């Protein structure tokens, strides 16, 4: 019993002190590869990488993998600090209030700026309110059904006579948006049933409490490989490299492109030289073999694009999603 007790009672924690010491000692051993130059002005001591999600979640794991590589390159510790709350908005607001000196960074999810505002317009977070350091990676949503169910293809969903229940990982998430758009475009009758995150949603599909759900690939892959879940399609713009046989919604003729992108951002107004130095550090982190195998293990697709592209893409998604939900008359914040 209790998604809740588990969510509320146990202390998920974080870490800074020990992690800091560890990375510090690691850095001391590894040395500062690039040395001198503008390194005198920046960094001034440890660079904090904040995460708006709980420790142990996928965003947190990515931050830790990144921090390890980047701190080696910067020559200072990079502790990961979790400040979960309000889908990550709490951490985002905290970072925008920091001094723009590059000492405090945030690993931010695209859904916070592009999808959450569609459901919760108050206090929406805008990617333009930050200085973007670099894009990081892409995490795809996959539409799954239980292999025990009779729904094995998208056509089965369309042909179904019953009104389907689709599980979402929460209100204002990519999981909800992607399915609302698909169901609307394919004219499938369905009711959204929101759960609290990926794992309870998957449990609901496995137990056939809901007929279908969109889950981030990394969370569902074990069950897909184990034959418990059937992947129907992904919502990315190209086929996912880890699921080459599964078509995208686009290929099936539906205009639904929803993925979870992540980027590293700094407070607005961070000096260009500092941003450049940080970008170098993260590029070095991207280049390590360790980080590569991390991406592979977590089924993440590298999307290490520049700042301008991040802003263009994210702002573009927000606009197109806004247009689409208006076109199809979808209200993400209403029970149907």
């Amino acid at each position: 019993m209790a998604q809740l007790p588990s969510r509320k009672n146990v202390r998920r924690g974080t870490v800074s002190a020990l992690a800091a010491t560890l990375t510090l000692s690691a850095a001391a051993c590894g040395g500062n590869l690039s040395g001198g130059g503008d390194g005198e002005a920046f960094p001034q001591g440890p660079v904090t990488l904040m995460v708006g999600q709980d420790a142990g979640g996928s965003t947190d794991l990515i931050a830790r993998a990144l921090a390890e590589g980047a701190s080696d390159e910067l020559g200072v510790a990079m502790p990961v600090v979790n400040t979960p709350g309000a889908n990550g908005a709490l951490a985002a607001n905290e970072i925008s209030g920091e001094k723009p000196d590059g000492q405090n960074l945030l690993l931010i999810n695209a859904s916070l700026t592009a999808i959450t505002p569609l459901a919760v317009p108050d206090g929406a977070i805008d990617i333009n309110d930050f200085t973007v350091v670099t894009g990081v990676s892409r995490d795809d949503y996959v539409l799954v059904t239980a292999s025990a169910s009779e729904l094995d293809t998208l056509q089965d969903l369309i042909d179904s006579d019953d009104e389907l229940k689709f599980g979402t990982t929460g209100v204002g998430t990519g999981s909800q948006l992607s399915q609302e758009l698909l169901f609307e475009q394919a004219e499938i009758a369905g009711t959204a049933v929101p759960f609290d995150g990926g794992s309870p949603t998957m449990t609901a599909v496995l137990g056939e409490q809901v007929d279908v759900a969109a889950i981030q690939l990394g969370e569902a892959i074990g069950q897909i490989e184990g034959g418990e879940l059937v992947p129907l399609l992904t919502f990315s713009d190209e086929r996912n490299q880890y699921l080459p046989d599964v078509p995208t919604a686009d290929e099936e003729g539906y205009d639904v492109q929803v993925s979870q992108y992540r980027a590293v951002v700094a407070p607005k107004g961070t000096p260009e030289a500092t941003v450049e130095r940080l970008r170098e550090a993260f590029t070095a982190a991207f280049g390590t073999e360790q980080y590569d195998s991390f991406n592979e293990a977590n089924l993440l697709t590298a999307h290490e694009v520049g700042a301008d592209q991040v802003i263009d893409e994210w702002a573009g998604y927000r606009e197109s999603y806004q247009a689409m939900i208006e076109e199809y008359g979808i209200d993400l914040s209403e029970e149907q």
Partner: protein
Amino acid sequence: MDLSSMIEGFGVVLEPTNLLYCLIGVVIGMLVGVLPGLGPAATIAILLPLTFGIEPVTAIIMLAGIFYGAQYGGTITSVLLRLPGEASSVVTVFDGHVMARQGRAGTALGIAAIGSFVGGTVSIVALSLLAPVIAGFALAFGPPEYTALALLGILLVATVGNGGRVKAVIAACVGLLLATVGRDMFTGAERFTFDSLSLADGLDFVPIAMGIFGIGEILHGLEERNQAAKAPAKVANVWPSLADLRQASGAIGRGSVLGFLLGILPGGGATLSSLAAYAMEKRRSRTPERFGRGAIEGVAAPETANNAASTSSFIPLLTLGIPANATMAMIFGALLIQGVSPGPQLLSEEPELFWGVVNSMYIGNILLLIMSIPLVGLFVRILRVRSTILAPITVLITLVGVYTVRNSVFDIALVIVFGVIGYLMKKFGFEPGPLVLAFVLGSLLESSLRRSLLLFDGDPFGFLTRPISGTLLLVLAVVIVLPLARALLRRRAPERELESSDV
């Protein structure tokens, strides 16, 4: 079941490195269990970077040790300080601390250690045998079943407290109300958040529990000049007497089974099972009035159940890849870092890891039993410090501990607010237990109920069409109606005699 790979699993555990990390894990677990505010999930998060360099099975053996070790340690402060080290030891406070005041702290700790050992061991054996079978059963628990369970739990809350029934109900209602704070999960609407993002996800359980139980108690004690956080002078006679053992044996047996079953449920766990085990013992007892006044079953049952549950909560993770609670989520994360994705294929692809971890729990529980009885003396010595020193330190640890959970200054303020509320409740005779427990179950009840109604297209009779939720609701109805009916019958009995004589 593949017996040979299970036996090979023992070979894995008995490697010196793995034994050493198992020992390290359980010692750390016990320590964080003793310290209120620092829980197993936080500890695992802190130690996660250390596991990068070691073998997956070794890493998980250590992290698992932290988890169940904390269940042993959490008891100690519950009994000695009336300050639950872990949420799952909250109910142990009721009888454990009373026993300590009666000079039977040693007996309470001893029986808790023995119960934990039995519960843990029973649970591991059952895990080994039933893991595949159980997995299918756990999935049958959907929103309607959780709704019924939460309702039953809230009803049980009223029987847990020892103040008046009415005051317990009032406290439980306040708990339910507090659970409504936060952004509505289904519509995104703000409820009682006052535009504060810190309240958007609702109030967190930890600051409420720490404030009401921890700070509230210390304040109340200071007012009484009774030095509330005083450890008993002596913990003599850690080994429970034969009579104690006989009295507690039934509770330990039932607690093992109940804890095991509740721990399997996704999201289930040590906290709920300890509460349920306590309530069950109180219900079953021929002398329920002893509960809350130092009944040894009141310590044995929840401590057995929480350890059994913490072991069995590995089942959904290892068989389905579903973390049952936040600590399991941390271990899930640790496995992913190691490149192992937990799921249905784990048992066939990585039998060494599966059985290595499962079998390490036998060893870990034996280590804990061996250590905890002699170490009780040591922990007591740590805790036997004057309250003028201990109270401020406890407050400090509480505040720091609460901060580390979410790195949130707001939570520190919450602890203080709920500390004052806890103090006032205590002063006016309200039991804090029902408030805290109703708070936990309240959000579960709300979200499960609304989810169920979405699934049933708004038809409330849907609950009765599913076997498990239907049965649970039937039990609920019986629990409500039976005492009422009995009371009515007793009152009506004379009247009926009159009626029948009229006819």
